[in-house]
C-alpha cells in the first residue's frame, strides 16, 4: 500500500478525527454506514485488509469536498482512491464498475453503444460515432496490467 504517486501516507497521521470530511461528504449523507473518517481510522489502526472488502468503500463520488474542507489538508479522496485500487487488485470490484471497465477494455469507450446512436446522430446532422483505435487501447491496457485484473 505504498503509492506515493497517489497520496502521501505520512499525512494521514495528521488526522485528528474531527469528521469534517464526513459531515461534508455527499455519499455519507446518502448512504448509511459510509464514513470516510472511520475508513481512515480503521485503515491506520487495523490495516488495509479491514477496509477493502466492504463494497461501500466505492460509494465515494470523488467530489473532493473532503480535501477542500479538511483542516489538516489531508487528501481523503485520494486515500479512498488508493484503497479502491487495492480492493480491485484483490478482486473486490462492484459489478457495475467491473462491467464498465470491461466495456472500456473491449471497445475503448466506457459505455456500451446502442445501434440507435448513429441514427440519432444522423438526424442531428452529425457524422457517425468516431472510431476508437481499439487494438491500440487494448495493447496499452494489456501492458499496464488491466487485462489481467479485469479480463
Amino acid at each position, binding site marked *: 500500500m505504498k503509492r506515493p*504517486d497517489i497520496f502521501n501516507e505520512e499525512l494521514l497521521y495528521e488526522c485528528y478525527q474531527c469528521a469534517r470530511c464526513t459531515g461534508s461528504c455527499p455519499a455519507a449523507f446518502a448512504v448509511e454506514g459510509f464514513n470516510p473518517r472511520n475508513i481512515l481510522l480503521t485503515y491506520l489502526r487495523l490495516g488495509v485488509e479491514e477496509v477493502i472488502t466492504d463494497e461501500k468503500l466505492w460509494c465515494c463520488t470523488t*467530489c473532493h469536498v473532503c480535501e477542500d474542507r479538511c483542516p489538516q489538508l489531508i487528501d481523503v479522496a485520494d486515500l479512498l482512491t488508493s484503497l479502491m485500487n487495492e480492493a480491485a487488485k484483490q478482486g473486490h470490484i462492484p459489478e457495475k464498475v467491473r462491467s464498465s471497465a470491461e466495456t472500456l477494455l473491449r471497445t*475503448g469507450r466506457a459505455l456500451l453503444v446502442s445501434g440507435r446512436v448513429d441514427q440519432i446522430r444522423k438526424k*442531428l446532422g452529425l457524422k457517425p460515432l468516431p472510431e476508437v483505435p481499439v487494438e491500440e487501447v487494448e495493447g496499452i491496457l494489456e501492458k499496464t496490467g488491466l487485462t489481467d485484473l479485469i479480463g
Partner: protein
Amino acid sequence: MRYAFFLGCVMPVKYPGFESATRVVAEALGLELVDLPFSCCSAPTLMRLVHYDSWLALAARNLALAEQEGMSILTVCNGCTNTLKEAKQVLENDPGLRKKVNGILEPWGKEFTGEAEVKHLLDVLRDDVGLEAIQGRTEKELTFRVGCHYGCHFFRPPRIMYPDRLSPSKHFLPTQMDEILGAAGLNPVQYNRRLLCCGSGLGTKVDLDAANQITREKLSHMADKQVQAICVGCPSCFEQFDRAQVLLNRKDDCNYEIPVFYISQLLGLAFGVAEEKLGFSQHRVKVTSLLNG
C-alpha cells in the same frame, strides 16, 4: 482558434444533441474543432479508482495524440477535464512515471511531452472567445432564472484544476458559467449547495437511488430560489439531474420539473440557432413549456 475536440464517451453516445449544439455554437464564435482518434479519457470515477496505472497510460495516450498535432485540447465533460489535467500534472512532475508511461506508448509511436494545454469549453468561451463576443452574437432574449451547476471535477481538487488561480486559502470558486450566461442575457441565480456534487459518481458505480437523494437535496435548494432551468457543463451531471427528477417523482412522491440544459444548448438558443440542431429530444424533463411559455 483551433482545438482538438475531446468528446469523451457520454456526450457522443448518450447526448449527441449536446455535441451538435457545441459544434454549431463553436462555429458561430469562430472556433475550429478538430476530431482526433481519442479513446475514453479514462474516467476519474472509473479507471482511476480501479487501476491507476491504466488510467494514467490512457490519459497520456490522449494527450500525446493532441501534442503530435500541435493542438490544445478542448473538453466538454468534467470527468475528461479532470483526468487530462491531472494526468498531465502527474507526468510533468514525476520523471520516473513519465518514462514508464512513454515506454508503454512507444510501440504506437506516441510520446507524452506535456505540450498540449487542456481547457474546458467554459474556459475557452470565457477566456479565448471572450464575453464581449458572446454578448455580440446574442440575438434572442431568454429571461429564465438559471441555476448553474459547475460539477466537482470541473474545479476540484483546485490544486490540480486551477493551480494558477488559487485563493490565499488554496481554494478556487468558479464563476465562468455565470459570467458566460450573463453575457448571453440569461439570469443566473445563486442557490444553496451550488458548488456541491450532483451525485453521479455514486450512481454510476454502486447505488443510483442513494445518488438521487444527493440530487434531491440540490434540487430542493434550486426550487427554493425559483430556478427555472439548470445549466451544466458536463453530460454526466446532466444525466444525473435529468434522470433523478423523473425517478424521484416516481418513487419518492416528489414533483420536480426543472429542465436541464448543457451550456451549448442555452447559448444556441440565445444565438437564435434552430431548435432541431440543439437536440432536446434526449431530455427526460421536457423543455417545451419553458421555451414556449
